[in-house]
């Protein structure tokens, strides 16, 4: 949910990284955190288990600086990907302005991608949203691995509507900022109507 304060001239927007477990959502955030200059980022919070699996969420505030006198910020969240954390996933979707679905390109994770995407749509409906009404992009992650689905197969499973997709290797940063740039602009465009 966007937050506009005319008095302090602030705009805050919430982006959520969604997708199956171990798909690379947190890796996206870590890469962004490491690359963005200190002035433009806040503290990154990871509520993770001892084995570094996301337990509740990761959070990274990014400061775009002033645009026409308005301090503009993006708040980046990830959801826990593991199936049994569905209650937490629903909570993170509250007030979302834009979504990045991070799919795992590995062949053996085809079903997990489909299930997670379906789960995202269901959880959005529970929060009172419908996917077509929210800006979203899909990132096909782990494109550097050998045993992966083709883009056509991934599109067929996750992107019948032909929305914007990005090939990525989040670990080395390939496609991470392209994805973020695209969704950030989509969200701002929607806000400006």
């Amino acid at each position, binding site marked *: *949910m966007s937050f506009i304060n*005319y008095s302090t001239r602030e705009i805050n927007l919430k982006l959520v990284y969604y997708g199956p477990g171990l798909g690379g959502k947190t890796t996206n955030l870590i890469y962004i955190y490491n*690359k963005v200059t200190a002035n433009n980022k806040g503290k990154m919070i990871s509520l993770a288990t001892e084995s570094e699996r996301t337990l509740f*969420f990761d*959070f990274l505030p990014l400061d775009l600086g002033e645009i026409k006198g*308005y301090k503009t910020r993006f708040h980046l969240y990830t959801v826990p990907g593991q199936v049994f954390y569905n209650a*937490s996933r629903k909570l993170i979707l509250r007030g979302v302005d834009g979504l990045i679905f991070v799919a795992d390109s590995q062949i053996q994770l085809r079903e997990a991608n489909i299930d997670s995407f379906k789960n995202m749509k269901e959880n959005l409906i529970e929060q009172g949203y419908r996917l077509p009404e929210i800006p979203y992009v899909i990132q096909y992650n782990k494109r550097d691995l050998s045993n992966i689905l083709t883009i056509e197969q991934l599109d067929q499973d996750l992107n019948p509507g032909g929305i914007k997709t990005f090939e990525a290797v989040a670990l080395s940063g390939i496609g991470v900022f392209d994805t973020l740039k695209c969704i950030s*602009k989509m969200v701002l465009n929607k806000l400006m109507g």
Partner: protein
Amino acid sequence: MSLVLYEKEFKEINECLNNLLLGAKAKSIFLVDKSGQLITNIGDTVSFDSIALASLTAGNFAATSALAQLMGQNEFSLLFHQGEKENIHISVVESRIILVVIFDDRTSLGLIRLRVKTAISVLSEIFKRLFVKVKKEKELIKSMSKKEESHPKPEMQTPSKPLEALSEKQDSTKDNSQGTQTEPEIQESNNKTSEQSDRFGEDFQQKAANKIDNLFMD
């Protein structure tokens, strides 16, 4: 639904929180939206990372609300975390806003609870009014867009025209019976719409896109 704050309500909110800070002898107070956006904070805000506190509070509150629902409760309207030196008192305003009061041993939980209760009733009134105002403004903008679609503007029309029409429309929808919106406030509301259409135009989008391109780089 977006949360929009105007100058008038923002001042009223801060005034209410200041009274609470002094009356309850609290250390600091944060007002947070349920989605994790920090609305405002007062008191000692330097000791904390405000943005992180807002996000974690919303997460905490959301998780506790989900627990309440599991138990067949609508929501736990109040949370209290006791620390060695500092404590956090969390309560909800108008089902959408979270009031976080941080206090130490200079005061007591009883006093905090008493003052928070009073503050919540004041804040509720402000937010109720704000939500109505935002809704009205959105409806006006929507009806204006529909009007423009059915009667497209001539190419050389000045940008002020739709705003004048908006003022007329808004005056006609003014509800005096509620007694909550005075004439100057309506005017302020119109001005904000004017500012919004000016600031959030293509120029804003272009500047934002440039910032995004410059900041989000490998």
